[in-house]
């Protein structure tokens, strides 16, 4: 399964800056992810010329296995092209246009090949509230924000603390509490968008250099029912930005929990002889309290076999 993220947000919110951050960090990483970007226009994407292996029309191939495509033949065709690549990308990010209906686009991620479809919307902390009442785009902006699983409130350094708080509470009210990540220049831990834990990238490393974040992990040799797990996922507060867990149900089938902001999914997998449950999470310091998570998993596994 390929990870799939729809990246939305109005003109000037910082989508391209975020994508450039992602590409740069991935390039520097010891364990790069094969990312495929589907963008409107190559023009604004900083692609290190040394990384470019080849370019054919609407597709740029990078040395670290990443590709960058433009939307020339429409969305569905572009996605098909990416899915058919060899080697297959591990994660596809679609940069939606400033006025796109991100929920509609994310629907393409719910088929058989693409997984963990999630919607990340970047908002310009300075202008988002004003744009959300603009005569042309008010409804579009509001629809985008409400459809997000996770909102990146970008450029918060430009706001006075008081105004920043007011903006956050306005956003929370508008979106009914969708988790918000305040950030500057789109700088967030990569793990929030991609796989939480990778071979050379343990969870506590992933928040390294990002003081505002906290990580948490847990493991136990017990099985758990799907119902209990779903109830646990629902109980996670908006401070938990990203969470992933692998479990085994009482009948010996794998369960996988994926949380991206408000999106919480439990998927069943193959039969296994193991019974280890493992869980990792990232959140905002002060908003995701590790003692709360500890207590929640204690309760979750209390009666488990």
């Amino acid at each position, binding site marked *: 399964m390929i990870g799939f993220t729809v990246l939305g947000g*109005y*003109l000037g919110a910082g989508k391209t800056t975020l994508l450039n951050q992602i590409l740069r960090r991935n390039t520097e990483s010891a364990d790069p992810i094969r990312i495929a970007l589907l963008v*409107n*226009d190559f*023009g604004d994407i900083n692609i290190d010329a040394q990384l470019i292996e080849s370019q054919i029309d609407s597709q740029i191939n990078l040395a670290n296995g990443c590709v960058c495509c*433009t*939307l*020339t*033949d*429409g*969305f*569905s065709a572009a996605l098909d092209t990416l899915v058919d690549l060899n080697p297959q990308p591990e994660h596809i990010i679609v940069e*939606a*246009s*400033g*006025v*796109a*209906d991100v*929920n*509609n*686009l994310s*629907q*393409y991620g*719910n*088929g*058989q090949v693409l997984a963990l479809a999630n919607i990340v919307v970047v908002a310009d902390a300075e202008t988002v509230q004003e744009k959300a009442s*603009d*005569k*042309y*785009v008010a*409804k*579009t902006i509001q629809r985008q924000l409400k459809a997000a699983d996770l909102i990146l409130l970008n450029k918060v350094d430009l706001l006075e603390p008081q105004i920043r708080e007011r903006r956050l509470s306005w956003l929370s009210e508008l979106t009914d509490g969708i988790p918000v990540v305040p950030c500057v220049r789109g700088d967030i831990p990569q793990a929030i968008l991609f796989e939480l834990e990778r071979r050379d990238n343990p969870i506590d490393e992933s928040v390294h250099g990002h003081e505002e974040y906290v990580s948490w992990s847990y493991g136990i040799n017990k099985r758990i029912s799907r119902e209990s797990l779903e109830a646990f996922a629902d109980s996670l507060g908006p401070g938990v930005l990203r969470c992933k867990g692998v479990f085994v149900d009482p009948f010996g089938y794998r369960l996988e929990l994926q949380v991206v902001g408000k999106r919480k999914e439990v998927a069943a997998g193959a039969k296994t002889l193991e019974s280890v449950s493992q869980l990792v999470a990232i959140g905002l310091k002060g908003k995701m309290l590790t003692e709360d998570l500890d207590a929640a998993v204690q309760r979750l596994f209390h009666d488990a076999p």
Partner: protein
Amino acid sequence: MSITIFQAQKIITMNPSNPEGTHVAVRDGLILGVGSLQEVAGWGDYELDMSFADQVIVPGFVEAHAHVMAGGMMLLPYMGYFERKLPDGSTAPGIQSYEALVDAMTLAESELEDPDQPLVAVGFDPIYFPDQARLTRHELDKVSKTRPIYLQHASGHLATVNTAMLAENNVTKGMNIEGLGRDEHGELDGELREPAAMSTCKTGHRIVQMVNHTEQAIRDLGALARNAGITTCTDLAGASILSPRALTMWQEVTGDESYPLRVAQYNIPAMPGSAAAFDEIADQFVQLQEKQTEKLRFPGVKFVLDGSIQGFSALIDEPGYFSGEDHGQLLTVPEQFADWLRPFHRASLNVHMHCNGNLTQQLAIDTVEKILREDPWLDHRHTITHAQLTTQAQLRKMSKLGLCANFFSNHIWYWGDQHYDITVGPERANSIEPCASALREGVSFSIHSDAGVTPLGSLHTMWCVVNRVTPSGRVLGEVEKISPYEALKAVTISAAYQMHLDDEIGSLEAGKKADFAVLEEDPLSVDPMHIRDIKVWGTVLAGDKHKAAVAT
């Protein structure tokens, strides 16, 4: 060069200095003159062609908003509610019950030879079956349990498929796509809503997409146009003409001497929502113009700026939709639209802007004003196409800015009742496609079918704006009716004007192309309610006769 003089019962020229005649002299595809035989005979030896002695000749109709899809659809079995004219002159019946649908689909199924080929049909519209449960895979399973079936709806936004089609594409109820229709038990019911869900059934979806990119689609467009008296038709963003393969195909088909139509290609320079390198694309279009031929033109580009009124996806201003949920959506970032438009405007390329909602249209008008302040071009003739809900203030401004309108007048008939009762309410429904106001405010306008959304046919399009009646018998906005003469102008010279082709086509005038629509009756003197029923003999294109196909 030989001269042919066509004699007619009456010739209506749409040339105000020489409005009528009985004879038209033609040499080398061009008109020498219109008048009496005596007036046109002096050009030299001629052959008198009496074939149209009982007919009325008007300028060949110019359809300024249609798509090659009108032809592409003909390649698939038709399951629409209203009957449909086919390229061979025959008529496909309207399908007005689920039983009739199953029968028609079963017949189409029996005609497929390859057992693995999916059955793909088009035109079904649930809006005409309000009292029945939604169509599901179970009805289509009656047609075949083994052959995959894909039935595209008329809106293009939905499809219904059978169980075999779901199975062939591994579409299961576990897929968490909103557009997958479900019954009360959560089982898939076979309805697919919007492209994400529709594209899950690729083996069917792909065929609907592909038919438009075939030579036969272009040929069928030509035949349908000829049958309707149309001699110049746009393909407004149907083909990607910048692709060498598409260009070659269009050149070859239209270059065939027997091809009866001039086609004006208006490409979408980029997919809606994308921010392509428009400067570069504008250059490519300028270069493309060097490849123009007599029957294949590239006057400009088209931008799609919003959705549709009946789909509630057109962006309309206060007080908004009369009922139903507002899904109004711009397909451009307002601040960026000037950047899209500017390179084409600077390259003197004519731009047609799809605006169904009046708020979208406001953006288009304001952006054109901004561009004109930067780069004056008095004769741009940029056009707001669809322009259905144009307000009086917008008409006044469009007139000053030199913007043209191309009204989607067939909506008055096909969706007029729905607009009155459901979408925009009585006041805005009555002023929809405001032709009389446009005339008063001095906005040059055309009227269109948007074929294949509604059938190609300029007489029907004229009939709509002259009578403004709906299927329920309501007259939508008596005061916005225009005369048959003004309606004829809108489907001839005014349509040519907004493509910068009015010096060549659109009226019958010395030096212009000898393109005629040959009609069995005079549209200016019949009962206005009879205009759409006037029989079309066929066309003359550059002096050559093309008889409409008649069903045998």
